């Protein structure tokens, strides 16, 4: 069943390209640090070296190896992205389905909250909250980002579920005395599974981009290495105007490659599963 669902995806050239690029970065984030065993925090006298055999991507102002930083950075950025995405998905699903199932005053209140969060720029709230926290782990950054990017998803879920709710099989389940929870889990959630997955992918992108933005403004994780922190260091040390391209180009390429490949995966899934967009 699952296989027949997925099979058309692998006939799609764009999907294959997207998933290959994504897996490449995912694996280099997970496995890279085991194979390339250079300490990304180790400082040496070879500072600001351009790429060489010794340092495949050169070094920064403190003589730290950029490739090692990049591999660890990809790992942390993906971690932040995934964590933020899970948080957003859970909040959005709960609020969206609760509003659709309960209706009435609960619906009104939840939708008011959703609209307020939707109208308020999430990056600004993230900046404000992060500025009050002295210590920010990767997890804290992920939570700050994940807390505010769910509204558009919750609204879409609510709309979708409300249309499903008026179908006959849901009436039948209601008559059979299903509890709200059972109704959601058995009848409703399966209808939003693909949409939820596509949104999850976009949430990951939001997390990765959000981390980079927070870091650049000086509010990134206070320990560890991330792609955003690499960019911030190169900005702080004026690496761009001094022409140290190997410092700020790789983390940017990693961000764009990961998020763009996820985007391709999401849109091709939409094309394959959505009959109105399916290519004839």
């Amino acid at each position, binding site marked *: 069943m699952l296989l027949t669902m997925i099979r058309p995806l692998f006939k799609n050239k764009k999907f294959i390209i997207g998933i290959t690029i994504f897996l490449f970065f995912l694996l280099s984030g997970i496995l890279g640090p085991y194979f390339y065993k250079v300490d990304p925090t180790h400082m040496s006298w070879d500072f600001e070296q351009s790429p060489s055999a010794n340092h495949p991507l050169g070094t920064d102002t403190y003589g730290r190896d950029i490739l090692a930083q990049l591999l660890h950075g990809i790992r942390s950025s993906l971690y932040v992205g995934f964590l933020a995405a899970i948080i957003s998905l859970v909040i959005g699903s709960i609020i969206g389905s609760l509003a659709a199932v309960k209706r009435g005053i609960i619906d009104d209140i939840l939708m008011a909250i959703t609209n307020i969060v939707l109208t308020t720029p999430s990056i600004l709230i993230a900046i404000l909250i992060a500025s009050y926290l002295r210590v920010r782990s990767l997890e804290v950054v992920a939570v700050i980002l994940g807390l505010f990017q769910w509204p558009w998803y919750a609204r879409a879920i609510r709309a979708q579920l409300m249309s499903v709710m008026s179908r006959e099989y849901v009436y039948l389940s209601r008559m059979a005395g299903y509890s709200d929870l059972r109704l959601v889990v058995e009848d409703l959630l399966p209808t939003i599974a693909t949409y939820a997955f596509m949104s999850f992918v976009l949430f990951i992108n939001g997390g990765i981009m959000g981390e980079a933005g927070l870091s650049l403004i000086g509010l990134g994780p206070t320990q560890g290495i991330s792609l955003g922190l690499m960019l911030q260091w190169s900005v702080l040390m004026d690496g*761009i*105007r001094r022409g140290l391209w190997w410092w700020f180009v790789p983390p940017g390429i990693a961000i764009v490659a990961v998020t763009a490949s996820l985007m391709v995966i999401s849109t091709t899934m939409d094309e394959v599963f959505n009959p109105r967009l399916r290519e004839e």
Partner: protein
Amino acid sequence: MKFKPMLKFIGRRFLFLLLTYIVATTIVFILPRAIPGNPLSQLLSNLSRVAQANPESIRAAERVLLEEFGTDKPVMVQYVNFISKALRGDLGISITYYPRKVIDLIIPVIPWTLVLLLPATLTAWWLGNKLGAIAGYRRNTWVDKWVLTSSMILSQIPYYWLGMIFIYLFGVKLGWLPVQGAYSQGTIPSFSLSFIIDVLKHYIMPFASIVLSAMGGWAIGMRVMIVYELGSDYALFSEYLGMEDKRIFKYAYRNSLLPQITGLALSLGGALGGALITEIVFNYPGTGYLLFKGLTTLDYPMIQGIFVILIASIYLANFVVDFVYALIDPRIRLGQEE
């Protein structure tokens, strides 16, 4: 046009945004008081290091801070004070630039951010929609594939990273354009021709990096929308009636533009965030740069002030977009959307 429903719609939107603004300022109020480790007491003890002035003014600043965050009064009184001040635009006094008022520091930098953000965002929106519409109309041709692929990549490039690449390529390597600031150092802002040319030269790179990386998303959205519209009943019916393609396309384009207008309102926040960071990368003297300075010195009144001002402007922009939307689409006025 019926006037009354329009007025009702506008009134409802205004009330909603006012409510949202109060919620946002409430968050600003609660945060420093709710976060464990009380950043305020830390701030007070750090004050001597932060302010570069004599003990007397530090004490004065301390008094201001205490009064600002009013630890001596009951919480409800503090809250009411805070909200009424925020609604009047009184944002307190900066610590770094003591004793200057936060609002006086923010007002001069806002035009730089507006001049960068608004034209760039609108240009990106317009260009992206045109490109996406063409791609959707010529679906599955090379134009479509080219537009889609490049949009997919462009839409994922953060503004500021594209800015960095531009600085390196056109500023450092080729030396065509100035690499930082909004105008050359040493020149005094005036309305002379040479100054305007200087400003424009500094403007090109930040502007272009925002336009290019923002338009991809619009193109992708518009392409899907056009495909939907061209496949819908009215488009097919018009086609069977023998209407020319160009005319059908025009109708489809107009209908597809509507959701993109809502999208524009919703994207403004993200665009603002991106522009703030782009300013930091370019050392562009806008709100983002001021915020960055405030953050490095932990100037909380300033950080809060910038937050309140930016949130208020985003809400205002949302209100304007809603108004425009209601003008264009009668269905919204009649309240079918909500």
